[in-house]
């Protein structure tokens, strides 16, 4: 049996940018100033504080412009999870006199899903919308559920682009429905920010979660856009930071890094990534018994999620890892819960398809050379694992 850990020329290929990204050089350079040179607390009245405050407000403006919001509508947080938690809980609590029904989808990020589950324990009712096999949320079901609950719906929270399969949701349409019915609309744009168009005015979005480390910014910082006039219950209690909506000394270096990362993105990069993504999809699908999970067209520029029949995801991931390639998987064995990905299951995929799925997520640094190396190694690893596997298209599995 050929050893797969002896490649002719080993490369290090990072294709797990959906998990996190390398912090850009320009970002690190910008952040450095705020550790030892401009290190003041933005709330202080002296010049050290003032210059920190200037950096804070400048960053706020940059992020706001990117989504067509007002600077005062941007609240900096510690990241996507805090933003999601704040949005869902904050809106729920602020509106519990008006109603107790929340609508979300089956394939949201755990930061939204588990918060909804917590709210269910407190007496809120939650509808988890179905997702089509293309990975698009059921809008008809959304309308029906709002109709059924007759004004008791206080929040709709549906992610802009799914983190596992990259499918982009009809956010504008959802925004219109919510505006019509006077329901607060939150969308988790952690994966889509700077990769897909976001215009909070045009799309009638009331709340939007963002995270820096998905776009070559630092970890530990994000933002929540809250439309002016939205009633929300403050969650982080303490000082009056962030327009008295989120207490805590501002992470100036992180925030500056976040703004810098956002300002670096350009259309050319997005176009390149899209081309490389398509190249990877086309070549991986040449391997027999494979399928793309989720819509091809309505998909983020950097996301590829493929099911490799008859092999298991963790094994495939580790063989690739031995050859310097980093990806992620939706298999049960790889998760702490031993359950396969809830996102893939929500598409109606069979368990065995979920177990054999791998997510490849590109970045602006990904090259064609890296993808060719990856394709070669995926082919070899799949071949090796299929030789070890008792499953194939001819075997009709009968459980004993």
């Amino acid at each position, binding site marked *: 049996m050929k050893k797969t850990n002896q490649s002719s020329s080993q490369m290090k290929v990072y294709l797990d940018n959906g998990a996190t990204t390398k912090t850009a050089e320009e970002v690190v350079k910008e952040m450095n100033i705020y550790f030892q040179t401009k290190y003041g607390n933005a709330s202080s009245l002296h010049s050290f504080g003032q210059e920190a405050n200037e950096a804070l407000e400048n960053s706020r403006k940059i992020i706001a412009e990117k989504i067509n919001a007002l600077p005062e509508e941007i609240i900096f947080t510690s990241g996507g999870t805090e933003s999601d938690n704040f949005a869902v809980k904050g809106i729920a609590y602020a509106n519990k006199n008006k109603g107790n029904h929340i609508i979300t989808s089956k394939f949201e990020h755990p930061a939204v899903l588990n918060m909804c589950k917590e709210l269910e324990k407190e007496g809120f009712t939650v509808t988890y919308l179905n997702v089509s096999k293309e990975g698009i949320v059921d809008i008809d079901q959304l309308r029906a559920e709002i109709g059924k609950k007759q004004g008791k719906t206080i929040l709709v929270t549906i992610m802009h682009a799914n983190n596992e399969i990259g499918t982009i949701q009809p956010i504008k349409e959802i925004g219109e429905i919510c505006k019509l019915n006077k329901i607060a609309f939150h969308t988790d744009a952690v994966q889509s920010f700077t990769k897909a168009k976001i215009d909070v005015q045009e799309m009638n979005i009331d709340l939007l979660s963002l995270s820096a480390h998905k776009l070559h910014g630092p970890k530990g910082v994000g933002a929540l856009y809250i439309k002016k006039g939205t009633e929300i219950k403050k969650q982080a209690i303490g000082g009056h930071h962030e327009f008295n909506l989120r207490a805590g000394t501002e992470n100036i270096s992180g925030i500056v890094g976040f703004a810098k990362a956002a300002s670096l993105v350009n259309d050319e990069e997005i176009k390149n990534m899209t081309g490389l993504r398509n190249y990877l999809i086309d070549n991986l699908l040449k391997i027999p018994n494979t399928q793309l999970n989720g819509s091809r067209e309505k998909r983020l520029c950097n996301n590829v999620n493929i099911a490799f029949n008859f092999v*298991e995801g963790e*094994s495939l991931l580790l063989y690739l890892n031995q050859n310097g390639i980093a990806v992620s998987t939706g298999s049960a*064995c790889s998760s702490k819960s031993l359950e*396969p990905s809830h996102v893939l299951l929500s598409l109606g995929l069979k368990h065995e398809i979920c177990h054999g799925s791998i997510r490849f997520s590109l970045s602006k640094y990904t090259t064609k050379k890296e993808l060719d190396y990856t394709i070669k190694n995926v082919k070899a690893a799949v071949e090796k694992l299929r030789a*070890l*596997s008792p499953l194939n298209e001819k075997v009709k*599995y009968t459980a004993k």
Partner: protein
Amino acid sequence: MYSKEVMEHFTNPKNSGEMKNPDAVGQVGNPVCGDVMYIYLKIKDNKIKDISFKTFGCAAAIATSSMITEIAKNKTLDEGMKITRQDVANKLGGLPPNKMHCSNLAADALHNAIREYREKQNKLNKK
């Protein structure tokens, strides 16, 4: 996460592949769970003369399948029935707690194979 021994058996599994005309096949798991193991046996004079495996599963599943074929080869059927998941896990230098069930599957697959063989033998002897 995984020991050196597990990674070795995972990267270079021993005794893998389907056997031609096995005397018994033990099967455990199912694709829904994400683990399927087949253990093939060739028996002579009540001993496991040859053994091989096919596995659909994670690194622990492949490694435990490979390891159990090494442990069981040339053992008597009685000895084979006494091999436990702990034996497999120990020889692999331990497994993460959430992966111990994989070693259970390997032992079960081997025991199923031996049981199947014995049942077949009983039927033959009764004729």
